């Protein structure tokens, strides 16, 4: 195996109690046993379980030429579900972790005073974060980018919500939100870890023929009908959101952008304070916001044209938009100005959904569009972020050769999420194209590191192992909405779990 084609070979262990950063080697044996990404995260989590670790990891293909190889994963115990969860990292975040010289970052313990971690060129420094503690996500991002002299510095951070112990605090990726629906912003705040900033000028080796194979897969992907479109709103339409509901946002669309190496531009930039058609340089530092979370947008659609300003405040406070949407809806707040005020207040209240009487799944708001049994199943499993759509995109179940059995559908989704989190493929891209299935991903992984043992079967086996082991670490707790509770759900859940054990 040519490990240097995929990984830098380093694991960082940052001990917040001791204020130290130690390096460990990422060995070929570890990759052989776990492949990468969430599976290695979980192994590291178990290794350090007595210190309540949080693990940030990159997949085998993260940052390579493989299509949509933007993803990484954060693994830790969710404060709202009490279960171990895997939160996808997207945009440029995971790629920058790897290029900064670290494949995995384990954070242990908690600091007495606010700290931040700076990863750059195989160096890790824990620094004082008093200067940014209390600042919102945008202020923190600006300040740290200025401090390190480069707008390409990527960050995983928290806003005031995480600092103040809000249980629906989300981790942020740079200035924008993430797909964290597990309250991991609370977890970082409880440890007084304000941010991890990364910038690396490292590079990976490339196997002979790998680039050509990646280009071929990329070209194949682009033949799908969805690739004729761009942006998050097109995905939402594909999921069944009506054009009329999207119209108020559509009017503010400025541009679309893809995460690192992604074939589909799944992020949409809105202009709020300036006309979206503006061609000259903006007069304001930040006149809009980036939509990158389909579930968050759906949750807030009832705000109509007020959605962008409210979502911007949610991003700045470091809150989970799905949860905020559920809370605002429950409280009947639908006017933008009032909603912004409520969001600011929420960040300081340390509130959870249960406190507000919002029906939820293990403490989290249910997927807003669908209560189909497969969707309920996925959320009840609560291992991967259901901020990622719960069905194939750009086509139906038939296109991915999955029948009508809800358990089969849920398993298909869980397998896709597990495999993409192991390899570092964008979870949305993993739902976008029947051609980009597990077999193709395994081929790319095998080619990248010259590893014959990485077959579709091996990858799927690792995925099921990840599901079983993650689930086994969870504690009983939480409820599902009363309207969901049924013998069907219980039976299908049991069937799923048995499948992983097998």
């Amino acid at each position, binding site marked *: 195996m040519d490990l240097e084609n995929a990984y830098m070979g380093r694991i960082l262990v940052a001990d917040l109690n001791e204020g130290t950063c130690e390096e460990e080697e990422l060995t070929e044996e570890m990759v052989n046993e776990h492949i990468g990404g969430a599976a290695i995260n979980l192994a590291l989590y178990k290794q350090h379980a007595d210190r309540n670790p949080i693990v940030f990891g990159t997949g085998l293909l993260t940052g390579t030429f493989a299509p949509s190889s933007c993803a990484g994963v954060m693994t830790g115990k969710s404060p709202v579900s009490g279960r171990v969860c895997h939160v996808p990292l997207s945009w440029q975040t995971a790629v920058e972790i790897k290029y900064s010289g670290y494949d995995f970052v384990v954070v242990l313990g908690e600091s007495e005073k606010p700290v931040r971690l700076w990863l*750059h*060129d*195989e*160096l890790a*420094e824990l620094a004082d974060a008093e200067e940014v503690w209390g600042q919102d996500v945008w202020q923190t991002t600006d300040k740290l980018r200025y401090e*390190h*002299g*480069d*707008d*390409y*510095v990527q960050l995983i951070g928290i806003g005031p919500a995480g600092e103040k112990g809000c249980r629906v605090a989300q981790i942020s990726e740079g200035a924008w939100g993430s797909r964290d629906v597990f309250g991991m912003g609370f977890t970082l705040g409880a440890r007084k870890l304000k941010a991890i900033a990364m*910038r690396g*000028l490292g590079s990976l080796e490339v196997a002979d023929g790998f680039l050509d194979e990646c280009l071929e897969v990329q070209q194949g992907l682009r033949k799908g009908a969805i690739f004729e479109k761009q942006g998050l709103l097109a995905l939402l339409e594909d999921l069944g959101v009506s054009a009329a509901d999207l119209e108020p946002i559509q009017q503010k669309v400025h541009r679309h952008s893809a995460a690192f190496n992604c074939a589909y531009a799944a992020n949409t930039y809105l202009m709020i304070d300036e006309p979206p058609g503006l061609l000259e340089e903006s007069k304001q530092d930040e006149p809009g916001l980036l939509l990158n979370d389909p579930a968050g947008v759906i949750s807030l659609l009832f705000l109509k044209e007020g959605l962008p300003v409210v979502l911007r405040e949610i991003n700045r406070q470091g809150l989970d938009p799905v949860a905020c949407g559920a809370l605002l809806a429950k409280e009947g707040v639908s006017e933008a100005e009032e909603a912004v005020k409520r969001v600011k207040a929420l960040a300081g209240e340390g509130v959870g959904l249960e406190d507000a009487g919002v029906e939820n799944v293990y403490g989290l708001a249910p997927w807003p569009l669908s209560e189909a049994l497969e969707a309920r199943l996925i959320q009840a499993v609560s291992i991967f972020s259901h901020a990622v759509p719960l069905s194939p995109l750009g086509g139906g179940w038939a296109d991915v050769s999955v029948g009508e059995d809800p358990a089969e559908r849920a398993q298909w989704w869980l397998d896709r999420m597990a495999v993409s989190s192991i390899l570092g493929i964008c979870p949305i891209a993993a739902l976008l194209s029947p051609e980009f299935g597990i077999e193709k991903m395994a081929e790319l992984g095998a080619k990248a590191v010259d590893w014959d043992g990485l077959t579709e079967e091996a990858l799927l086996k690792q995925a099921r192992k990840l599901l079983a082991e993650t689930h086994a670490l969870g504690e009983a707790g939480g409820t599902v909405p009363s309207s969901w509770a049924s013998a069907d759900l219980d039976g299908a859940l049991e069937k799923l779990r048995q499948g992983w054990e097998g």
Partner: protein
Amino acid sequence: MEQRDSDNLRVGVYVGEGASHSWTWFVDLMEKYSYSRLRLIEEDDFPCLAPEQDVLLVSGGDTFAVARALEPPGARALEDFLQKGGLYIGSCAGAYLPLNSSKAPLSTFNFVKCRINNLTRDLPPVHQMPLKFSTQYGCDYIYHPVREDVRVRMEEGFPIWGGREVSVPLYGGPPMNLSEDIVSRAVYTGFTERTRFLTEKEIAETVYLGKVAACEKFFGKGRMVLLGPHFEHPWFPEGNDIIHQWIEWHVHPERPAVSREMNKKPGKKKRRVCKGVLAPQFQKDFKREISNMRIRAHAMTRQSVHWQIGAKVYEPEKILHFLDAIWKRLEGARPTSSGMLSSGLQEVLVEQAAECNGLLKLLASKIDSREDSEELAGEMFASLRSLVVGFLGVYFSSAGGDVGAG
């Protein structure tokens, strides 16, 4: 000159005032060909050139600034070095320096009679890179119709490469007219798809084609080699080998050196292994400063900014060139518990790096606020040059050779 093998040949690389980043290319080349007795030479070292060096390498930069810094004693030291059998290899500014000139301070370096072919009173229209296109020279202009790759043919009789054409990069170096005192060793023969034309192609053809790209003049046992293009550029292994052949030819006129480039077999590229030895804590502290500088400098390269320092235009890319000269050696250096540095010297280097980093941060801040940053850039580049010279001196010392900063 006493006959020496390449591993005990004493090679000096000029790194003084007026030298731009391209001297680091000569350092790379010497390391690549295992010339281990390498010394970085500044103005103060010139009086001892003759007894202490066998080869002197002078790369690009600001020719006027080099001449001003060396002063007449430097010119006399150079003459003494040549008369005693030394080999001078100058590229670009290093080639302009010893050409005949009537203008001070260059007039003290009139070693070679040949005239350049890129001198004009009336500049033709410039199509791109106007700041790189010309330099005033009295009432005339030295102008540069092309940049980047050019084709040159080595003259028959040159070891190994005689009669062959190679590509080498041109960044303002001279096209020379043949004169009685020089022997042409290479002529400009053409352009490539990577050639950048700063003016009409026809003008470029007139200025360069058929003119001397490399020549030499003998001074008793010594010789002066002048190269228009940067044969020492690390991306041009054929050009590198030609310089190596020239050095070996000078030392062993009776037998050609083995050509690494011609005999190399295709295969997987191996990472170069450096031999430097650095103490781990120093390596970490120093690396932190250099990494922070690299990140900031990379960000600067995305901005439209340049500085006129002396007669040369500097861009942020040059900061990266200097930093990379350190970085790639930090990457390959073997840490040991003892290292080869006194703790005092380690502290000095780390402090120097922190100071340079501070200047770079200030420079970035001035750029952001659109303030004039030229003076500060000059200060920062001087600090950076000094840092690189200091580090490389230490690095090569620790590699086991009889080498170091001047």
